[in-house]
């Protein structure tokens, strides 16, 4: 594994490359680059942490308008069990490895504050993971196997066992956390490492994914083939606009499973998308991008160059949402957010988006990660967002759907923190 020379890279590019490369030597390269990193330590008292793994919002900073600001750097580590516990005697044989997993994760919680500045993480389990057990997941968990959701995709599926999502504003924190979990460090942020995941989980290198989100970060990737120079300087997402406004996100309560052994958990959907930015920025005008992202009623002034003129809402009115079908027919164009908003319930969104940009595979993309109580909620939103029902003139005018290309899909259960370590489908 080679570490990129700093050379002509900007500092952020360099760090991004470091996250993408990983590897033990990357860590020292990374620390050399930044010198001492001052990252707040975590807690010795696991009970002081929230019961939900996905309880991030109250620990995250907010932007100037009061919207949650996601951590800037992300790694998704794909895991498969090193030895299959079902080969042995189902649940019981899991006791020891589960303790190892819990112990390893608690090390991270001691090492880093649960915040943007420290580290946020979740561990999720796929339907394939649960498949090996005799029992089935309870009805309170809606976790189907992933499948193609539109007639324009032929995705590969996440069929490994588990996914670790590490997120921080500091790329070296996500990297060190990963190294700490896999026996490559002796201490992590000053915390001695006594247990790690090796022996329980193996990493699937080729399924490892990385990404970034935040104003200015996409525009730093114009060296990548398919990322045009015209990506706006301040854009937090590749497609140029702010996203994740408070009023168009589900609350964490809305996405949390209420009953049963996994109460306090959530389901997680992850799709990896290619995005076509050359056509989006070089052929479409800003006014067209605004219409296709938001709605044909949105004008450029209302939105601003990258969405800066919006505050805590994407500006959609109930009427505009109701008009989606009519806009398709009468105006020949509908907005992505407008379509997706049709899936709101009582005016509230039902999925919580935590998507981020990527240049994995040296091409621009999005790892579209969302949380919801039931996978059915995601399916409803995705169907609304796809808008195959709409009578839009040409597919390029049907929101942004012609600009995104689904390559992979995966579904996960994020158990509550208390059951995050190798859960069986029917814990007592």
């Amino acid at each position, binding site marked *: 594994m080679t570490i990129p020379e700093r050379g002509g890279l900007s500092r952020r590019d360099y760090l991004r490359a470091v996250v993408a490369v990983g590897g033990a030597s990357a860590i020292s390269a990374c620390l050399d680059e930044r010198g001492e990193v001052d990252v707040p330590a975590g807690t010795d008292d696991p009970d002081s942490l929230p019961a939900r793994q996905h309880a991030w919002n109250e620990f995250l900073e907010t932007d100037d308008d009061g919207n949650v600001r996601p951590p800037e750097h992300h790694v998704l580590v794909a895991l498969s069990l090193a030895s299959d516990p079902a080969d042995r005697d189902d649940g019981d044989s899991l006791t020891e490895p589960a303790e190892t997993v819990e112990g390893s994760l608690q090390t991270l919680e001691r090492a880093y504050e649960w915040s943007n500045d420290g580290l946020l993480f979740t561990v999720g389990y796929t339907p394939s993971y649960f498949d090996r057990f005799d029992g089935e997941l309870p009805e309170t968990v809606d976790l189907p196997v992933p499948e193609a959701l539109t007639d324009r995709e032929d995705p590969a599926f996440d069929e490994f066992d588990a996914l670790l999502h590490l997120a921080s504003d500091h790329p070296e924190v996500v990297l060190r956390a990963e190294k700490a979990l896999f026996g490559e460090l002796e201490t992590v942020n000053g915390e001695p490492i006594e247990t790690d995941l090796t022996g329980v989980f193996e990493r699937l290198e080729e399924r490892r994914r990385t990404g970034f989100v935040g104003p200015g970060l996409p525009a730093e990737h114009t060296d990548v083939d398919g990322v045009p120079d015209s990506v706006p300087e301040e854009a937090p997402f590749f497609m140029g606009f702010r996203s994740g406004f408070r009023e168009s996100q589900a609350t964490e309560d809305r996405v949390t499973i209420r009953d049963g052994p996994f109460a306090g958990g959530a389901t997680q959907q992850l799709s990896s998308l290619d995005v076509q930015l*050359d*056509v989006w920025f070089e052929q479409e005008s800003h006014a067209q991008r605004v219409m*296709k992202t938001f709605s*044909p009623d949105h004008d450029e002034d209302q939105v601003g160059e990258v969405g800066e003129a919006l505050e805590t809402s994407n500006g959609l009115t109930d009427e505009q949402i109701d008009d989606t079908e009519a806009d398709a027919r009468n105006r*020949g164009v509908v907005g992505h957010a407008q379509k997706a908003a049709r899936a709101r319930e009582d005016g509230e969104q039902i999925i919580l988006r935590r998507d981020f940009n990527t240049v994995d595979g040296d091409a621009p993309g999005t790892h579209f990660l969302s949380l919801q109580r039931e996978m059915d909620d995601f399916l409803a939103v995705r169907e609304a967002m796809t808008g195959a029902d709409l009578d839009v003139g*040409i*597919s390029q005018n049907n929101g942004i759907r012609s600009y995104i290309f689904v390559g992979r899909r995966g579904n996960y259960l994020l158990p509550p923190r208390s059951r995050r370590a190798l859960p069986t489908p029917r814990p007592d």
Partner: protein
Amino acid sequence: MDRRIDRRHFLVQAGAAAGAVAVAGCTLEVEDETADGSGDPTLPQFYEIQDKPDAVYLPTHREAMEMLEPVEAGEYTLAPMLSYVHPFWIISGDEIEREEPDDGNGVHLMIVVWDTETGVVLPIDSGTQLRVTKDGERIGSPRTLWTMISQQMGFHFGDNVPLADDGTYTAELTIPPLDVRTTGELEGKFAETETASFEFEYDAAFRNEIPARVEYLDREEWGEPGALEPMRHGGDMENGGHNDSDDEDAGHVQFSALPPAEEYPGIGLEPSSGADAATSGDAVFVTRLLESGSRFVEGGERYLLVSPRTPYNRVPLADMAMTATVSGGETDSAVALEQTIDGEYGIHYGAALAGVEPGSTVTIEIDSFPQVARHQGYDTAFFDMPPVELMVPDSIDS
């Protein structure tokens, strides 16, 4: 007329021989910054015409292109063509944007798709995707091809595709199921996703040869109402596009012309204006009322068939939204017309109509004009499309 593609790379010089560029007597203004052409030696000079009519007009030049061997994929035949990157107009709602290639590197890739069995060109947008690779490496991100109309090429899928290096490229096309009503010989077809791929060379020879074959029209003609003759390299779609020939004809490229008005069945509705043909926004509307019992309607109603097309070349105007209202009968009723592709009459919009009597008026409201991307000469027509008012003639049975 019946040129065959008998070589892998058959260069077509579109259209008939044309005169030299006549600079004298120019009556149109040419935009200053483009008056000297694009300045890129690998591109022809693209002139923007000022004061274009709100109608189909003669462009500045005939495009030249290289035709590749058609490929089959499931029920489809795809004919790929390559040209130099060039401007076109994309439309979303009321926003029109001229796509201006910023350098000459790359190709303008065009694909005409037809049903192999019937030869009917499929002018329907279902989000055809293009993925380009070179030596196994992907080049750029996947893209969804635009649906486009041009005077010479008719309806096609296409885009400017930037390419940096010379060499052999592979293009892979994915056609998702067509979301359109199918009737006649096409009924039940086009429900599967199909993938096709082909290779092409991109090199200095291509960059030098193709643009050199561009033919400019006399400047006096630029912007005048009219249209270039369609390319006829092989069969065409007249008479419903039946490709009733045998294997020898493999390799023909279909042109998406719809049948002329007189070839449609049923009774023609008459423009209330008294004009010969119903038009709106310079599109010609062939409108027919088919008596009950037609194969288009299950019940006893009549079928209203509306077939909008470009003037001159009869290129179908697809993916519009229209509503028909009948008045003067017992009740006023409005129905949405459904886009339909038929083995005999190609693309049209239709609905079962009740309550039609001699003397009724049928108003066709254009809810959304064709959002299809336009090549030069079609970029100012089919926008402002007032309702088409028609009269039901006395000759129908009441």
